[in-house]
């Protein structure tokens, strides 16, 4: 691994982010990344965060048109309430703050605690949960669906809504609408190695793959013999479309998990398009790249978000962040 010691990987990365992006305020000690112009008068603040290891999510999505602040936790570990409170205080202009929370027990608990603390300090807080992963059975008896690729769409679209000056309730409603209209499915060709462990988190022999993985190196629901890109696309599209049943054109995110070359991701995107066309699902926009990663895992995830005209307009609005940038 290209690291100094496991204990400092997050701090080292934050120092590097600060050096590369002077337009961000990076508090390395307290682990908060904030838009340099925050708080923006009259604008709702957008705060997200989660374990590190998913870069560019979330810190790479801080900037005009997207997040106001991000709180990186340890690798694959939710940040702590102190970070979220600090971020909320830094970005609140009086218009309130929206917490965008991926649905993992740790993230939910820590953001809940932070919301209480923020409200004690007079900051109005709303929360939206992202839970788009169709591989997890959603029932009262599980922790519910995980938040994965749809987080990018929620942060981008809600970020545009906030930049337009929409009030907190409206930004929250839009974020919720994006989540409810998004579904994801991931596959892994290799496990990933956390800095703390230094070796793969689970055994996945060459010639086999895992279907229905998350973004934390956790194994998936099912293991199969290696499939072609076309066969994987069929499985992923089927899982997502059967659950989403889109009636509007979709935004497509073909997301790399960290160690799969763009050459393969574009090839996979071609297969996804073939399968979507065969199923009669119209495509509105496409994003291909490494956006919601899982350290050095090889594999990909597919996220579809059905977008009405307003969501599409907000998606197309300018964005200027380290990880996502257009229209500026």
């Amino acid at each position, binding site marked *: 691994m290209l690291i100094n010691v496991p204990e400092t990987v997050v701090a080292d990365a934050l120092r590097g982010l600060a050096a590369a992006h002077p337009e961000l305020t990076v508090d390395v000690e307290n682990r908060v990344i904030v838009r340099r112009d925050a708080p923006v008068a009259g604008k709702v603040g957008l705060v997200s965060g989660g374990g590190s290891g998913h870069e560019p999510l979330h810190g790479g999505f801080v900037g005009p048109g997207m997040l106001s602040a991000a709180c990186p936790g*340890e690798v694959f570990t*939710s940040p*702590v309430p102190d970070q979220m409170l600090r971020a909320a205080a830094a970005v609140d202009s009086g218009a309130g703050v929206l917490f965008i929370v991926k649905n993992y027990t740790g993230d939910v608990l820590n953001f809940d605690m932070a919301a209480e603390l923020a409200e004690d300090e007079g900051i109005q807080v709303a929360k939206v949960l992202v839970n788009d992963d169709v591989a997890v059975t959603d029932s009262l008896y599980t*922790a519910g669906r995980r938040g994965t690729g749809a987080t990018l769409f929620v942060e981008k679209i809600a970020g545009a809504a906030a930049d337009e000056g929409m009030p907190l309730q409206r930004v929250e409603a839009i974020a919720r609408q994006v989540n409810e209209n998004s579904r994801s499915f991931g596959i892994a060709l290799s496990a990933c190695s956390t800095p703390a462990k230094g070796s793969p988190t689970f055994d996945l022999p060459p010639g086999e793959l895992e279907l229905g993985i998350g973004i934390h190196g*956790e194994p998936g629901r099912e293991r199969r013999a290696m499939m072609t890109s076309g066969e994987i696309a069929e499985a992923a599209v089927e899982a997502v479309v059967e659950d989403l049943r889109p009636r509007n054109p979709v935004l497509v995110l073909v997301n790399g998990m960290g160690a799969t070359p763009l050459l393969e991701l574009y090839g996979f995107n071609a297969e996804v398009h073939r399968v979507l066309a065969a199923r009669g699902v119209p495509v509105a926009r496409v994003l291909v790249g490494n956006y919601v990663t899982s350290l050095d895992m090889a594999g990909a995830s597919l996220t579809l978000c059905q977008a009405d005209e307003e969501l599409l307009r907000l998606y197309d609005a300018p964005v200027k962040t380290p990880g996502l940038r257009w229209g500026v």
Partner: protein
Amino acid sequence: MLDADFFRRWMTVTAASVDREAERLTALDSPIGDADHGSNLQRGFTAVTAALEKETPDTPGGVLTLAGRQLISTVGGASGPLYGTLLRRTGKALGDAAEVSADQLAQALRAGVDAVMTLGGATPGDATMIDALVPAVDALGTSFSAARTAAEEGAVATTPMQARKGRASYVGERSIGHQDPGATSSALLVAALAEAAGE
């Protein structure tokens, strides 16, 4: 009677045992979770011992609420809020008495465990820390060493269970056959209590 020194000892012994067992906790977390339970708790309890050296709370309740706050502020993940709440609520239930009886501790711990169940939504049988903590609290009326045995047995008993809460629940039936890392660290916490009591 148990004084602030006893509770400080409990936390120091826990920190040492988490240090010793960190790799095992992380290894248990690998096949069904994300391979970080040991290092996360290590970070938390290191902060707890540092805080207890710096501030010197003079009541049992003061020691545990400080320890709980430290865990919430340093661990992250689900373990931070859950273990933090366990110690903080137990500490709050002990009030500001300078000394407490073993029975009072048992009652306070029950309040702490109840708070964890409310926060995390887990009940016995979900393959979580609750499966070690609930039998431990039940056995605490007998002796500290009975609580230790109950917690260890409770942790082992999670092996054939399918996880229904926390990250291990994502792998569904594949969590069966793995001892839950959270139940295992909870058993360490209870064992440290017995060790602090000299049992």
